[in-house]
């Protein structure tokens, strides 16, 4: 007959094994099928590219990042990623100083223009990036700085 302590230790050991085997979610969150959870946990461009199995990114004038220079509130910052190049596989929007660098990833087909706009949360003033991952493996990006302020009487 196992003691309660032994039961708990056994449970913890099993959980650790399962986590190691990737059978439990890395965090407590459930995930939609095919969701690249690991990519959403990375903190830098380099880590992100590794998680996506992509090469080193290079800055490009053919990629644009649009957004305000200053945001009145970090809860809602409108950002856009676009490129004039053909053969884009996906567009990513990154916020460098967020707890995880990637906010969103858009997988495109020929039926849509390579231009997306959304709104993100920014914890503080930071560089933001638009990244275009090309079909031929190239990774191109553009960056700008967005200052985040806290307005009014505070919140």
């Amino acid at each position, binding site marked *: 007959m196992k003691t309660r302590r032994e039961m708990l230790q056994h449970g913890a050991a099993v959980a650790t094994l399962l986590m190691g085997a990737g059978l439990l979610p890395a965090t407590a969150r459930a995930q939609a099928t095919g969701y690249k959870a690991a990519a959403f946990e990375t903190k830098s461009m380099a880590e992100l590219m590794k998680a996506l199995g992509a090469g080193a990114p290079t800055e490009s004038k053919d990629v644009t990042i649009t957004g305000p220079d200053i945001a009145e509130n970090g*809860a809602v910052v409108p950002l856009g990623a676009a490129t004039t190049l053909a053969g884009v596989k996906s567009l990513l929007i990154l916020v460098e100083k967020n707890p995880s660098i990637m906010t969103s990833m858009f997988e495109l087909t020929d039926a849509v223009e390579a231009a997306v706009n959304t709104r993100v949360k920014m914890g503080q003033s930071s560089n933001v990036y638009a990244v275009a991952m090309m079909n031929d493996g190239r990774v191109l990006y553009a960056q700008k700085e967005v200052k985040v302020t806290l307005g009014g009487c505070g919140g």
Partner: protein
Amino acid sequence: MKAWKAASLLGALAIAGAVGAQSKSTADGIAEYRKMLEDGNPAELFEAKGENLWKTQRGPKNASLEQCDLGKGPGVVKGAWVELPRYFADTKRVQDLESRLLTCMETLQGLNAAEIAKTPFGRGEQANMEALAAYVSAASNGMRMNLPQAHRDEQVMYELGKRAFFFRGGPMDFSCASCHGESGKRVRLQDLPDLTKNPGDGIGFAAWPAYRVSSGELWSMQRRLNDCYRQQRFPYPGYASDVTVALGVYMGVNAKGAQSIAPAIKR
């Protein structure tokens, strides 16, 4: 000595010039940010929910709000917002939108107005009030503020509102006028509209209800006033109480002719 004075004066002017130039581009930056958010205002989601609530049969009496009189006749929603607060003959008092919605929710649907008034913002029926405020104000979007002052009680409420506006109290000795009593004031990067007169189209009273991005919530005028009182460190006013309605009359009458942009989007 003279040269030093002249130099320091020049230096001060140079700094003042630089600060002036910087504030101008910062103000432009904020304006640009606001413009980027105009298209795709989450308030539209609340509007849709409010329209649904207006038309859905609910409450112990299982009735919709479609017979609710907001001042222009039972069920007339378009144009009602820009004439509120106003006097209502059936209740014999001046009411703002939220007060009038409470009346209709109670008399038509059998819901408990006092309970709704006590419910915290964003919860239960209060969440529904916000959606209804978005829906009703949206129906007057683009129209100009035109509150009536024909009835004696409407005039009395204007005067009460003015007194309340200038009443200083609380631990900081603030009044509404401390922030909103003069033109050209601001707090951090936000311009403070002068609410003793018409501050312009889509400004002040004409800019609420609004979706507040900082909290991701739709703020009705009652919520806005409640938060003003919080910032002044006053006790919270009762929901849809006389003083809040009176302030609405004062600001709304002052804003006569201003174009309403409600429901707007704000930081």
